[in-house]
């Protein structure tokens, strides 16, 4: 799988298709980056130049927006995304211990992807499901009222 991601060549026709929709419009940079990311799973280096040219903005401006917003990824993502909620309700109910458990088991820090591309670990400011606190999401599944002791069993279910 790792080799698969690395050798995957960027299909630039997909990029051109997105860019042709937005060409010449003002104020669409974020929307373009969102669509590019939805298509590729991240914003590849090769795409940035094309985006800057099509929207007539500088490379620096594109890079500035990419690094300002938490939503954008500049590296390939794992097959599964873990989101540990760090909202206030989760904090007072002990989400930190859960986050540390995930980090220890997967040997990654928040914001990183495991070397086998199985998991990407993120933290989010609030998932808006405070009644499940402390909560963690893996892909679209919620794991509420979580304790560090349950983390390993949950992660084992994913491939």
């Amino acid at each position, binding site marked *: 799988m790792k080799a698969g991601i690395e050798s995957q060549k960027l299909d630039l026709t997909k990029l051109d298709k997105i860019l042709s929709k937005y060409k010449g419009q003002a104020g669409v940079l974020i929307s373009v980056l969102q669509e590019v990311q939805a298509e590729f799973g991240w914003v590849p280096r090769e795409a940035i130049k094309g985006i800057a040219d099509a929207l007539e903005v500088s490379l620096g401006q594109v890079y500035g927006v990419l690094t300002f917003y938490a939503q954008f990824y500049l590296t390939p993502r794992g097959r599964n995304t873990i989101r540990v909620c760090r909202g206030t309700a989760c904090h007072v109910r002990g989400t930190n*211990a859960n986050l540390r458990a995930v980090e220890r088991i997967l040997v990654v820090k928040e914001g990183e992807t495991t070397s086998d591309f199985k998991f990407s670990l993120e933290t989010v400011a609030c998932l808006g*499901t405070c*009644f499940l606190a402390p909560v963690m999401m893996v892909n679209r599944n919620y794991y509420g009222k979580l304790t560090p002791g349950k983390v390993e069993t949950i992660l084992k279910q994913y491939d």
Partner: protein
Amino acid sequence: MGKIRTADELNSLRQSIMEKIDPNKTCVRICMTGCRAYGAEEIRDAFNEEIRRRGLEDKVEVRETGCHGFCARAPVIVIDPQDIFYQQMTADDVADIVDKTLVKGDIVDRLVYVDPASGEKIPFAHDVPFYKGQTKNVLRKCGIIDPTNISHYIARDGYAALSKVLTTMTPEQVIETVEHSGLRGRGGAGFPTGRKWGLVRSAPGDTKYLVCNGDEGDPGAFMDRAVLEGDPHSVLEGMLIAAYAIGVKVGYIYVRAEYPIAVEHLKIAISQAEELGFLGENILGSELSLEIRVKEGAGAFVCGEETALLMSIEGKRGMPRPRPPFPAQSGLWSKPTNINNVETYANITSIILNGADWYSRVGTETSKGTKIFSLAGKINNTGLVEVPIGIPMRKVIFDIGGGIPDGRKFKAVQMGGPSGGCVPERHLDLPIDYGSLDAIGSIMGSGGMIVTDENTCMVDMARYFLSFTQSESCGKCTPCRLGTKVMLDTLTRITQGEGSEKDIELLESLGKQVRDTSLCGLGRTCPNPVLTTIRYFRDEYEAHIKEKRCPAVVCDALCSYYILPDKCQGCLICLRACPSQAVKGGKRMVHIIDQSKCIKCGICLSVCPARFSAVVKVSGEHVSTPEEPISVSAVMKGGSA
């Protein structure tokens, strides 16, 4: 349905919808927003399947609604017309509900809400104290209608307020009515809405914009999410009325990307409204034209600040700029722009339909109407509540919120998220309004109420909020960029037992400087959690600094884990789970934690069976344990010693 061109056509459409509604028809209302996380989709599928199997399709409607508010009891359903309330159910309960309640009209006892205070079973939603204590205005349709079906909205006076302003009111009268109602911005700052509309209307220029701020970034606040998911048309209609009053042709709704259901429901609502002609050109045959575009945020808390939000809509880094000029003079693409919060727009229809005097009957002298609060943290009834402004905080937390779980003691409530301050027990009888919260160092904010109990460390809480604002600071102005960093480092030092006595004064003086000199609301409010926790819980700071002790037993560096020899059964569970091999012991041998190896991850505490409860976390005290594992039977059980 074709386009509606006049107010009369709207009335007759409403009538024809109403005629088809049988008020006595059984309807199962399932929360399909927040409750999804607890399996609401499986419950819906089970209902549809069971109803089809029994051939009840014509007799029963299964309706997917927005949030019912009582999230602590998720998943919840309500069965009309009796208003039967079932909670914490699963798909396995569905066959029983169909058989007993839908067919025979009986109550399924085990799914009924039991009032923890009285032990009384309460089968009907309107009798449940959590609902009974509320005054629903903005949320009046949320949880009742299917938000993806515009007919449901129209049947409940939907777009009647729009029709009323277009046919009977001038733009000036609309502004006057909103101003007279006393409505103030629900995003936190509390600026009078009518006055803001007037400023944008009178600003020079032909092109003006309307913006709805749905970038609900405060961790622990989810009221805008509930409104957008559960009643999106009420926001669109509020924006339409604002567009008419101000003279605007294009509006934007900026929604957090983390709210996919809200985005989905909004987009559905917009396309339905366009189809019927409530959005587009010459709405209801009038001069009003409005196009509404949805912009998804990209994960930056500072974009909740209005000037940063405008930058983000323009596709740039969301960095605030100094005001003046205010957006009302120079906003989106330098044009006059009206920005209101989701909840503010959702208040408008009720003001227009019922009048300003009706609206201002509820509230205090200076703050009118109702406000939605999200209750979370150490509280029994986590969820959304709508109450009159001016109600005492104690009433919200204890009467509606059901108090603190497990008989623990209330410590403080954090109002307004990272921008707000904590409110201790002695101020709980103060009315919730903009002014009285300001006076005690807190804010009304967007409406997040995070309740803490005796097991919450206030220093850790302040550190938590600072770590959030520090990482979300955009870095443009020095006080915020560096001030948050220094405050965070100082707080971290204190929670690690390395604080010095000067740190409290440093935090106070730095906090005031950051508050007074930062560029935008993020920096100006982020010291609030620090300043209020020092003000009300100085003793906790001092315990960390002078005694190297965390009174709430939270801060890991100041805590230790022990296994109580008289409770340990030698079951090996914690020994096997410990990731650092710090637990010594054997089968039926009392386990011991080697403090030099312990990484304080808390796993032993979380896996120790509740019937043993042998693992304890302590701060500033020593628990005596044997040096080496000894036989369980050798320890006298029951703790008579």
